């Protein structure tokens, strides 16, 4: 060790006024020759060489001791490895983390601290790092790092490695800490996030159902009223022919009500429980349009559907239908008075492409980036909660699709959704 470094080590020791307990810090002292790493004694040759080697070993022990003294005050686990891949320094943090007393592990291969399945890759990483010009490297951005404790258990770790040139030898100092608690917290956070997203999707569904229920109330009460009026006319009238006419009206009104209920049951159909099914995109569009008509009936908004021949996609039909419904509903709400909602579907190589455009108010450029944010809305308090497009994007992402909006204020909005074709069986038209 150079004089300057030795002086630095001494200064640190003086400053910290810590008594360095060599075996405790994991550095074999002069009295620990029996525990000296095997490889050191294996280098012994003739007397002259032996003498030089002894001197070298003494220097190395002094260096190790000083290095150990410096590292012992570090709170993290620090393990230093020599050129031969054997452990040279094992500080108190490392003893605590791995469960080995330093005296037992010093001089043994670093591999002992690594789960078997990672050993090959790890040896390669260390070798490449020794040869690279880098002086230090954070290992966490690489693949999973795990430590192996003395009791055989594993722990996820975050590690950084630094290169120290000491007496012509390259020492790799690995600084580790156990991230079990953090990983668990992260997993909990991800689970909570997923749960919150599911809750949002559910809330959106409930909100849509609320709007739908009010629309359905209107839709059913109208023909119901007509049924009542016709039945009263039969009750109070004497004309058989007019009576038949009223009865025929009642039958037609009942069919209308039945149609409304059929649409509602397809909306509330429980999710398919066994994975994904081939979904007819055009059928999903048609059902979404029927639902949207129930919620936002208007005689002056024209809905123009140009549905091409498209293959089925692998999904849950209710998801696909809900995504279309949310976009169509937004389009209808953007055209409060009159306009045209155009829906086209086509095959675009290995994707199904659906374009939904409206001639409504359009989206301001500054709002375009925020449309997917949960609770972002430009609608009034009774019209939306701002989770519709958030949910649409969740669904589109879930099936590896894409979604894009193109809009001009006062002119309208075009939404393009694509889904990859995964199954060739079942062409829809």
């Amino acid at each position, binding site marked *: 060790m150079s004089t300057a470094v030795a002086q630095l080590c001494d200064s640190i020791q003086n400053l910290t006024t810590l008594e360095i307990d060599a075996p405790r810090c994991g550095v074999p002292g002069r009295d620990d020759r029996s525990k000296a790493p095997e490889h050191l004694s294996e280098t012994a040759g003739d007397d002259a060489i032996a003498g030089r080697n002894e001197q070298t070993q003494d220097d190395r022990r002094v260096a190790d001791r000083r290095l150990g003294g410096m590292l012992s005050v570090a709170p993290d686990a620090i393990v230093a490895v020599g050129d031969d891949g054997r452990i040279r320094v094992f500080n108190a943090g490392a003893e605590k983390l791995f469960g080995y007393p330093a005296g037992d592990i010093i001089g043994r291969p670093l591999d002992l601290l690594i789960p078997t399945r990672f050993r090959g890759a790890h040896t390669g990483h260390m070798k490449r790092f020794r040869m690279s010009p880098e002086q230090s490297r954070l290992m966490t951005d690489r693949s999973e790092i795990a430590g192996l404790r003395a009791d055989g258990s594993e722990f996820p770790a975050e590690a950084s490695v630094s290169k120290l040139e000491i007496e012509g030898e390259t020492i790799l100092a690995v600084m580790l800490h156990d991230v079990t608690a953090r990983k668990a917290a992260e997993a909990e956070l991800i689970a909570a996030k997923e749960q919150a997203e599911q809750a949002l999707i559910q809330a959106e569904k409930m909100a849509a159902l609320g709007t739908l229920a*009010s629309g359905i*109330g*209107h*839709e*059913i*009460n*109208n*023909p*119901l*009223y*007509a*049924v*009542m*009026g*016709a039945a*009263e*006319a039969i009750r*109070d009238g004497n004309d058989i022919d007019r009576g038949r006419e*009223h009865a025929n*009206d009642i039958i037609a*009104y009942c069919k209308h009500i039945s149609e409304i209920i059929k649409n509602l049951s397809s909306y509330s159909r429980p999710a398919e429980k066994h994975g994904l099914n081939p979904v007819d995109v055009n059928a999903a569009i048609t059902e979404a349009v029927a639902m949207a008509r129930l919620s936002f*009936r*208007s*005689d*002056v*908004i024209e809905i123009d559907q140009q549905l091409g021949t498209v293959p089925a996609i692998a999904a849950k039909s209710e998801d696909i239908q809900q995504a279309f419904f949310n976009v169509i509903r937004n389009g209808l709400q953007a055209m409060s*008075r*009159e306009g045209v909602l155009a829906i086209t579907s086509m095959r675009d190589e290995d994707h199904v492409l659906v374009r939904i455009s409206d001639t409504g108010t359009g989206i301001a450029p500054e709002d375009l980036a925020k449309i997917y944010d949960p609770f972002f809305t430009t609608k009034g308090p009774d019209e939306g909660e701002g989770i519709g497009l958030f949910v649409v994007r969740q669904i589109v992402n879930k099936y590896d699709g894409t979604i894009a909006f193109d809009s001009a204020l006062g002119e309208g909005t075009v939404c393009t959704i694509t889904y990859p074709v995964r199954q060739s069986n079942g062409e829809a038209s």
Partner: protein
Amino acid sequence: MKHKILVVDDEAEIRKTIRLQLEGTIYEVLEAADGELGIQMLDNENILEVDVIICDVRMPKVNGIEAVAYFRKNYASIPIVVLTGYPDVQLAVDFMKDGVVDYLVKPVEKEKLVEAVTKAARQRTMFSGAQPKV
């Protein structure tokens, strides 16, 4: 002379049903297929021709809330009965505050409709002096 009832509703089957329920009474039905048309009819016709307005709420172009506000402002002497598929208490309260005679929810029985229209027509006669007979 029959009293003229203007029915403002975008559903043809509803207009037909109201016509049916008022058949054989002293009321004659005029039809407007939405709020805008209802307003046009009143603006263009002699207002004395219409005795009662029956107005729907959810309609394209000009909805029932806007139409009722317009009728109350410009034709305050014509009584209004709101007939809707939406049972909404707040909406009902707002309409009543605005001077609407009755707020009926579809489906409504013939007798109730005739009763509401008669009540409204009586209010109308207070202004015109004529006596309606059912």
